């Protein structure tokens, strides 16, 4: 059994995991918010069901690990249930706790990646570049059967799902960037925009510089979400501490990130330090998370500064990244910006806040269920004849890009940063 948090910060205050799970009255009002329940009609794939499973495990009334794990592993961790819940039961945290209770040792690959992130992020960049070269020359595709045979089907699926693997990462591209004396903001570079979609990171920096004044690249360590969700809490805490220390050394300005999953996790750092002996770190984590903003939040605040209708032309819609709309409640903010820039071309699609099935490793582990959700999402974008779909998390970018290539090549997915930046540039005539 992996180490658990055992205490959670809930909407109703700090609670033990058991108390948090017991706050569920089983009313079932979350069920239709849950993409996996709606897709399967299976109570064990519903928030209420998963929550009861963890509760029963804690009560010692359910000891069949395999079936419990099946139910818990199918959770997207999108958090739509908590948004629908009157008592705001933190189902995602409860599910992650359940998975930790069921998990033996962390998978060696996850552990290895986490350790590399902690000890030598540069090595990580080098490994990714190697990966890029393998992909560029088609070697990775040839290697997929070998990966599957080696017990790493997830890596094979990851390779199949990603089209982009740029050689030059964001750190390379921003090498010449000067750090201003008193930066207007600090940019937190999440792994997605940093290594996989550097175009997003470039756009974010450019847009924020324009809107807020010149900022600084924080050159931060990895946020630790991978370790938190799939690995060891000790690794997640180590990365959190590194980030907190790093941020403390770098001014007091707002820290703005452009992957909503990552940002939501940064905002939840205090929950990692609830043990009495961590009191000092808890205070530092609270101060840190107060500085953190999702970039889409900033665009919402600055919507008036965006050139009205500058990006008008192609039908544009917005897909809510789960970790933006649910734990961060960022629903109106990104739309304000998108609407301002898209003018008359902006339209809402049905079920914009339903998960696309990307959800971190979910798309690689539960390929079939993920594909169902993806098809629904693409269908809804197609129903409004969207040419551009905007979003704010790395997982959604990967998943939707794949979905559009496969089912609706008329549309493309962009990070809201790219859209905003382009509107600003158009306005400047560049």
């Amino acid at each position, binding site marked *: 059994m992996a180490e658990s948090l055992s205490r959670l910060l809930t909407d109703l205050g700090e609670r033990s995991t058991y108390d948090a799970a*017991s706050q569920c009255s*089983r009313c*079932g009002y979350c069920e239709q918010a849950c993409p996996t329940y709606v897709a399967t*009609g299976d*109570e064990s794939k519903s928030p209420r069901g998963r929550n009861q499973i963890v509760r029963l495990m804690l009560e010692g009334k359910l000891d*069949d690990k395999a*079936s419990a794990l099946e*139910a818990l592993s199918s959770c997207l961790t999108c958090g739509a249930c908590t948004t629908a819940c*009157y008592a705001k039961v933190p189902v995602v945290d409860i599910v992650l706790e359940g998975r930790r209770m069921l998990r033996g040792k962390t998978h060696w690959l996850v552990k290895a990646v986490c350790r590399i992130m902690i000890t030598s992020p540069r090595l990580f960049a080098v490994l990714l570049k190697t990966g890029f070269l393998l992909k560029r020359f088609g070697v990775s595709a040839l290697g997929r059967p070998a990966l599957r045979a080696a017990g790493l089907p997830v890596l094979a699926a990851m390779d199949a799902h990603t089209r982009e693997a740029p050689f030059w990462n964001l750190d390379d591209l921003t090498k010449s960037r000067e750090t201003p004396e008193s930066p207007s903001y600090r940019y937190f570079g999440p792994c997605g925009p940093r290594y996989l979609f550097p175009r997003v990171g470039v756009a974010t920096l450019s847009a924020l510089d324009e809107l807020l004044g010149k900022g600084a690249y924080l050159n931060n360590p990895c946020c630790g979400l991978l370790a938190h969700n799939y690995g060891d809490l000790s690794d997640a805490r180590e990365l959190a501490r590194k980030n907190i220390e790093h941020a403390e050394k770098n001014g007091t300005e707002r820290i703005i990130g452009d992957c909503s999953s990552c940002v939501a996790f940064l905002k939840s750092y205090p929950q990692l330090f609830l043990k009495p002996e961590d009191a000092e770190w808890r205070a530092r984590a609270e101060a840190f998370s107060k500085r953190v903003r999702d970039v889409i939040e900033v665009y919402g605040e600055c919507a008036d500064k965006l050139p009205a209708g500058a990006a008008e032309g192609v039908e544009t819609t917005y897909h809510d990244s789960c970790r933006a709309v649910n734990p961060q409640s960022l629903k109106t903010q990104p739309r304000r910006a998108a609407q301002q820039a898209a003018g008359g071309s902006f339209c809402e699609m049905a079920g914009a806040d339903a998960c696309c099935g990307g959800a971190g490793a979910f798309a690689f582990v539960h390929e079939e269920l993920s594909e169902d959700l993806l098809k629904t999402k693409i269908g809804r974008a197609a129903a409004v004849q969207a040419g551009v779909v905007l979003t704010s998390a790395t997982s959604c970018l990967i998943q939707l890009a794949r979905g559009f290539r496969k089912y609706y090549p008329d549309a493309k997915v962009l990070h809201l940063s790219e859209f905003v930046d382009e509107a600003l540039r158009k306005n400047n005539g560049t």
Partner: protein
Amino acid sequence: MRLDELRAQVAPGSLRSSPADLAVYSYDGAFDRARPDAVLIASSVEDVRRAVAWCAANKIPFIARGAGTNLSGGCVPVNGGLVIALARLNRILSLDAAGRVACVEPGVVNLDLQKEAEKVGLFYAPDPASFRVSTLGGNAAENAGGPRCLKYGVTTNHVLAVEAVMPDGTLAKFSLEDDGPELLSLMIGAEGTLGVLVKLWVRLTPLPVDTRTVLAGFSSIDAAVACVSAIIAAGVLPRALEAMDRPTVESVEVGRSLGYPKDPAILLIELDGDSADCAREAVQVERLCAEAGATTVRAATDPAERERLWEGRRGAYAALARLAPNVLVEDGVVPRDKLPDIVRRIQEIAAKHGVKAYLLFHAGDGNIHPNIAYDERDAAETSRVKAAGHDMLQACVELGGSLSGEHGIGLDKRDAMAWLFTPETLRLFHRVKNAVDPAGLANPDKIFPLPGTKPGLPFIRPPAEALSEYAKLLVDKVRAAPAGAAFRVRGASTRWKDATPEDAVELLTTGLGRIADLDKRNFTLTVETGVSLHALRRELESQGVFVRLPQGGGTLGGLLATRPWAGLREDILGMRVLLCNGDVVELGGKVVKNVAGYDLPRLLLGSWGAFGVILEVTMKLHARPVEAPAAGPAPAPPKFSPWALKVRAAFDPEGRLNPGLAAE
């Protein structure tokens, strides 16, 4: 249990039996839990049919389940068996905008139908609080209500037909268009104890042009209830007439201000219809509120402002759900004029048990929800809360009300049924269940007290008025008849003129002419069924009240028994019925919303005297004339369907009543 045998017959992967699967199908929205032996996540009607047939062959209980939001334990597999989950059967099969009918699978979520209907200017009227998640099959099985049902009626008023997998594994369709007894009404609200609904035809209603909301504050619950009565008496039928007490408002106001008046009682009145009617009625309601002593009256027309007035009501359950892990949402119903009494009784009971009750009620219907927040892990607190809930229901029954207005009886209230129904009536319910499900496999041990168990309390409902002299005569005649003798039930003979066979005992109802109760405060009428329709109409009009009955002559009983118009069912609330074994059973009552037990009063519509002699009927009254067609020519005596014959055997096992009629 030879699960493999069933597994081979249903969709791959749809039959589950892992410990986690069984654990998550052990509960619903209520308190109790019990694990099933297996779960079928059905993906077709055929799978449901095969599963039920397999259960029937192997004597295994089966429990149909929609979204599992039931608040009375109805989905809990108390005896194990197979849970049949219907959530995947979620297709709207057709939506006929012109005919205003939708045909749906049972797993369609109420809200999903609403969304589709709205696209063509229609809506589905029943709106239980769970409408965002609960399924139409579950709504029908529970006969769900909701705030809108004051004006539009509960689920049974909107289901036109159902297809069901019966406990023997066969498919059957029941429709309002069927001749003979209303088996459809029997299936609605049967809580899955008579079969599994697998297809429903439901009525859709045109969206109103205009909606207006009025919020009023009163210095006491009594004053608010007096206002409710005044509104109904004025002939205004709001689509919602909701009330809440001060503690409930305060619980919602934690951390935010609603801007509600600080009065002990709040009424929310919502009107809809065409613009002119709406505007006129809104003025009328505001005036009636002021006359009833409202301290504050606020009206809103635009959607945002209306939503603000509703905020306190809509947020109430949410606020309570945050006070403690669990909330007992009790559900009782009393005649409307008894609301002040029940509120006092509830407050006394809460104080006695040391719990705090927050009151929300559908005031127009006399349906009250005392809500008590608690933690089920605290055994002492839980038993106090349960005891308080029981005492509150007992108080409802003592005041002439019922055990449930919309949540169903399920597991939680089955023992309490003995407070509400006489042993004779309970035995009839059991016989009906046995007639349809002789092996007792369909959601067993729900709704009714288990045979042989002793209720904590005996029958406590206020006794019905003594039978009239003439009714007693009929009872004596039945009891005195020689064993096995046939009976011919006869009214004014305007519809069925055949002479009484020589060897039959004639039961002439025309002497049953008493108006037992004309209650202008509750707008209910209890009348004997031998009364002539002309005389009844004259009498009511002279009193300034109206009933929904077609034009035409003959007796009221003859009209009900021959059912020339399906609309008769809309306003039927209760009946007193003489069975051929001499038992007199009391069904339903003076409450306008009641889901305790099978809907036998409606079942008896169209039964042609072959089920029992309807001695007395209780109906809704109206303050304004209501539309009803002229009664057409009397229908010919129907041939009873096989299921009708089975149910008849529960009432009359030897087929003694009107025997010529029901022969196969």
